[in-house]
């Protein structure tokens, strides 16, 4: 085998390399020109994947959705938004946080009037809840229990996870609701982070860690808690009296008609019913199944705290943000 090829082989190498590069180029052309006339590229954050598994076939069963094919991409909210800004094709985006859509408005991909509809651009609501072990062995009923000595709290890293930002603002806003001053509320956050034993990169990773046996309490979306309970995980969850209303935005990107129709469908009563089934609070009234969600007495929105734009600057600025400072002060004291 070796002797017969000794002369031929060397010449083949450049040829082989060139043909491989050509193959690369062909693959490139093939993938860029793909796409049938009626297709929707959905780029979304991680948590609603389970819901879309049901929503997409339901849409395809409607008149508007007939024959529409889908491509789907799920990942961390911020990263997904950045990918779309960097050229990932999307007709519909569904993110955890409003600023992730605003990034695309800035990039000229989403219309500035994207939130000028009846639901202000939101497709699902939820609330921040506290997931505890079955039987609630540490008797956690609200935010004040999370800062007790010996309680181990899990929340994802607020600098990598959209859900963690909701958690921080829920805890902070709840203190204001209870009549504390902003300074006292910040002290609370400091005490809370003192009890945080792990800051996973995403809500899903935090949940993995919690299910692996670590921690007494996990701050998370209500829909995630409902989904886990349904799956039979040995957990239960507490809705604090004062908590934040989580609002997840959706927007059509570019001019795809099918994309716009899909967004419309997702806001329609039948779709909202599916969302509710999957643990999300509907954004429109009169949806059957909405009654199973108790409304906390002290529910507040991010806008009541000043809106994401202000909050991001004030709390999560990499150098000067309140949360950055808290992590630093705790870090300097615990690092030694």
């Amino acid at each position, binding site marked *: 085998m*070796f002797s017969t090829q000794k002369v031929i082989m060397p010449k083949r190498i450049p040829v082989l390399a060139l043909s491989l590069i050509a193959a690369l180029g062909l693959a*490139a052309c093939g993938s*860029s020109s793909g796409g049938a006339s009626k297709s929707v590229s959905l780029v979304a954050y991680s948590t609603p994947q389970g819901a879309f598994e049901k929503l997409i076939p339901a849409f395809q069963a409607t008149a508007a959705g007939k024959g529409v094919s889908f491509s789907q991409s799920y990942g961390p909210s911020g990263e997904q938004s950045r990918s779309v800004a960097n050229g*990932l094709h999307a007709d519909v985006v569904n993110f955890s946080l409003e600023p992730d859509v605003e990034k695309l408005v800035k990039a000229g991909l989403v219309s500035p009037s994207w939130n000028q509809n009846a639901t202000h651009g939101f497709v699902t609501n939820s609330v921040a809840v506290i997931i505890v072990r079955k039987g609630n062995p540490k008797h956690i009923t609200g935010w004040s229990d999370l800062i007790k000595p010996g309680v181990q709290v899990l929340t994802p890293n607020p600098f990598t996870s959209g859900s963690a930002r909701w958690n921080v603002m829920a805890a902070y806003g709840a203190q204001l609701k209870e009549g504390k001053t902003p300074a006292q509320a910040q002290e609370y956050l400091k005490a809370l982070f003192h009890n945080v034993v792990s800051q996973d990169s995403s809500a899903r990773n935090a949940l993995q860690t919690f299910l692996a046996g670590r921690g007494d309490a996990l701050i998370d979306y209500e829909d995630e808690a409902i989904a886990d309970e349904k799956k039979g995980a040995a957990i239960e969850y507490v809705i604090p009296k004062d908590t934040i209303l989580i609002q997840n935005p959706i927007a059509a990107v570019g001019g795809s008609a099918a994309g716009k129709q899909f967004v419309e469908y997702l806001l329609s009563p039948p779709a909202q019913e599916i969302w509710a089934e999957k643990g999300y609070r509907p954004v429109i009234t009169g949806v059957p199944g909405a009654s199973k969600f108790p409304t906390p007495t002290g529910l507040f929105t991010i806008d009541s705290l000043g809106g994401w734009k202000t909050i991001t600057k004030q709390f999560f600025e990499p150098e000067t943000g309140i949360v950055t400072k808290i992590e630093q002060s705790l870090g300097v004291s615990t690092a030694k």
Partner: protein
Amino acid sequence: MSSNPAGVVGFSPASSGRQLGRGPASEAAARAKSARRRQLGFRAIALGYLALLLLAPVAMIFYRTFEHGLSPVWNAVSAPNAQHAFWLSIEIVAIAVPLNTIFGIGMALLLERGRFWGKSALGLLIDLPFAISPVVVGLSLVLVYGKTGWLGDWLAEQGIQVIFSVPGMVIATAVVSLPFVVRETMPVLRELGTDAEQAAETLGASAWQAFWRVTLPGIRWGVVYGVVLTTARALGEFGAVSIVSGRIEGQTQTLPLYVQDRFENFDITGAYTAAVVLALLALATLLAMNLLTRRAHRGTAI
């Protein structure tokens, strides 16, 4: 691998002072005994280390995969997205690994045999892809080849989409597995020396002939390990590929991305099954490379 005579150093005669007074026979027996003890000690330490760090995790993956029997595994394997991810992974590996192998052998020869200015700098450059976090590799590829990147406009004019499609994923995979063949081949090349090649050329062989008949057989184990490691790393890459892929299900989802997707959705069997498939692919590569090397060099003494 090849079967060397067991532990030559381990069995080498030890003529230490305390053995001087003994007779030759008992001395030899004592030597053999202490060598045997040393060999067993080495083996125990090495295997104990591997058991804790490697065998236990691997065993656990297999256990978790099959703990609910075969039918969930079968379902996981036959899921369309899993199958697509499998073939995409194969496709990417089939492009990236040969490219890196050719590059690696060439670069190893250049770095080991060449004499030119900036050689050490070039050597350092080769290792860079390891030192950069895969996530940052992905990010920097987007900075160059993405829509708003340095070459973004030019690529768009040519109608080539690199980022968020297969070419970008191939590039990301090639980057993170770039150094292996170079680094595995260089020490062997150094060990081999140039005597045999020079002899071949003195006897009238062309440079290419000398390379194919003398150098390549001489460095084949280095290349084999290089290819095996490149393939393994290319198969398992997540971070960089994740960023440049756009993670479109059934389109730009490789097996590791699929594993992540399954974990995120608490489909534990699906995730572990895909992981086992990746492990088996890596083992198959090792096996194939072994067979290939053996057949190509049958009769050559190791």
